[in-house]
């Protein structure tokens, strides 16, 4: 198990190197100068051309691309993320401010879609062919095919503006900063963000469950005279769960991509919203760091999923 984990961790390293290299290359190809990404803009405006040139020398900008990449990536690893072009705020500070909001939203959506998707998919499989199953299938199809921002706008219109159940957007009101104060703000964006994933998980859980229920060991379990719920849940669902978790891992990038849009729709002050405005204002250093961190998030998530499946599957858990 430990060696498995270590091996899995090692495979991440080349991936991170390749991806960070591509991102750096992307930045290299954009207009502008690296000095402008490393020095706070107000400091920059006070420098004359000579001092800038000296700075470029001292920063090693005359050096070959590959060397500069090395300097950059080792810097990032030590926490030197550079500065945002807009306002010269250190990118690390932006991350510290915005990341909790994004994590909160993504985890809430992940939790909702995993739990709700598995339960609905299981119900659908157990009642195969019934009206419940057919309605769930239709709802699931709508869920995966209608874009999230549409659901977001409808939700705002119905639940915020008409019914007044939830606030229109935002995350924290000044002075109200406990989790329970924030919860009403979280409900709508988390639900809307989870729709597509819930529908995907549901459809997959249904087919995975049907597959599990058709296996021989289900008949063995029945032949033991155990109640149906135990046969279905302990033997059927337990086996159906592994592929579902793998699917959730594969879909995590979709969730991360979705959060960019949803944060915009609900004015959720997370990384995604920051990312959109950074792209608009051509704030390349910030765009680059957000891209790098999204990739890292996806890689780490897939690692966690692998570990979870390993823990669930005895063949891997007790592996050779």
């Amino acid at each position, binding site marked *: 198990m430990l060696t498995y984990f270590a091996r899995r961790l090692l495979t991440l390293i080349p991936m991170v190197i390749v991806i960070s290299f591509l991102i750096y290359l992307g930045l290299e190809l954009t207009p502008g100068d690296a000095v402008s990404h490393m020095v706070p803009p107000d400091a920059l405006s006070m420098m004359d051309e000579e001092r800038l040139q000296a700075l470029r020398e001292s920063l090693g900008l005359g050096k070959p691309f590959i060397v500069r990449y090395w300097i950059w990536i080792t810097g990032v690893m030590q926490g030197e993320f550079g500065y945002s072009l807009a306002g010269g705020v250190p990118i690390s500070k932006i991350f510290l401010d915005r990341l909790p909001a994004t994590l909160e939203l993504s985890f809430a959506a992940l939790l909702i879609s995993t739990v709700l998707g598995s339960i609905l998919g299981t119900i659908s499989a157990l009642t195969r062919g019934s009206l419940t199953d057919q309605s769930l299938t239709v709802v699931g199809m709508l869920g995966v095919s209608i874009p999230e921002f549409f659901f977001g706008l409808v939700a705002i219109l119905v639940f915020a503006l008409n019914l007044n159940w939830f606030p229109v957007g935002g995350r924290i009101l000044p002075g109200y900063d406990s989790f329970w104060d924030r919860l009403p703000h979280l409900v709508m964006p988390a639900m809307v963000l989870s729709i597509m994933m819930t529908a995907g998980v549901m459809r997959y859980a249904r087919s995975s469950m049907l597959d599990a229920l058709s296996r021989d060991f289900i008949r063995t379990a029945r*032949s*033991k*005279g155990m109640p149906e719920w135990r046969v279905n849940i302990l033997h059927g669902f337990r086996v159906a769960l592994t592929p579902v978790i793998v699917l959730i891992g594969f879909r995590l990038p979709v969730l991360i991509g979705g959060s960019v849009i949803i944060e915009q729709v609900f004015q959720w002050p997370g990384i995604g919203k920051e990312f959109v405005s950074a792209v608009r204002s051509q704030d390349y250093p910030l765009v680059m760091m957000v891209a790098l961190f999204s990739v890292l998030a996806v890689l780490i998530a897939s690692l966690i999923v692998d570990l979870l499946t390993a823990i669930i599957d*005895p063949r891997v858990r007790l592996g050779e």
Partner: protein
Amino acid sequence: MANDVALTVKALKTYIYTNNRCNRALDGVSFEIRQGKTLCIVGESGCGKSVTAASIMQLLPTLSRIEEGEITYHGPDGPVRIDQLPRDGAKMRAIRGKEIAMIFQDPMTALNPVYSIGFQIKEMLKYHTGLGRSDRHSKAIDLLRSMGIPLPKKRVNEYPHLYSGGMRQRAMIAIGMSCNPRILIADEPTTALDVTIQAQIFELMDTLKRDHGTAIMLITHDMGVVAELADDVAVMYMGNIVEAGPVGKVLRNPVHPYTRALLDSIPVLGRGKDQEIKAIPGQTPDPYNRPKGCQFADRCAYRIGACDQMPDEMQVAPDHRVTCWRYEEFAADAAE
């Protein structure tokens, strides 16, 4: 009725419905399973052996029904009409596993890969015995040991993928025998295993029958197995039992042409190397397009005009019955 009978099946008709068509999988099947004896049900693939077992266990596919007939389990508390119990009701579940246990054809797929062998034995004990947690554990170890699994203390915690095919079938038998059932149904338990393992599994089942007085219903398509293990035999063809009786009579004096054909299709011990082995000509009919009369007619060398009608069941001897119009000629021939 003799009180050594564990289960009676009478004129059982089980129909399976697929694509709006009705498959009369069992079309009037009768037999008894005697306490402490092995009944072999033998016949070609598709003749209804597994459906017979599934009817007794009430483990039939959803779109199927016991249309007519009786299945009576003669339990310690008097006879129970299994066919009248709701499939997943508490009464049926109390019988399933505890009174009548079953082991299946393919031990590679019959065990759940995500639970340890011990777990899969212990959950049976949990539902049918009052044993506590630690008693269940030691009972599981005892069961594995008595099924001939080495290092049972260690093996009890292992998962199925670490067991070989033969070991898995032993573990399945351990599950089946865990509540000391009165009847053990084994549906082609060795078809998926190789020959030496086959012999070991059958030896184990025979020992269990002797030691515990368990009645065994062994399903097979192999007449060789019948000769080795059976006390009683029922030969099935297309949802009917065409010949049944004690093994000595049926194998030594086979009356039905189908039984004879089955026996001719296997090598017989002691008849030497040059014996003739004849495959049965033709194929089993399409279950949706059956012959009107004797189901075997199309493949039978002795067919006459009367065979276009379904023959009645005839007694060759009080304990030997056959379903064939020309049984008297064959019986006379066999008696020689």
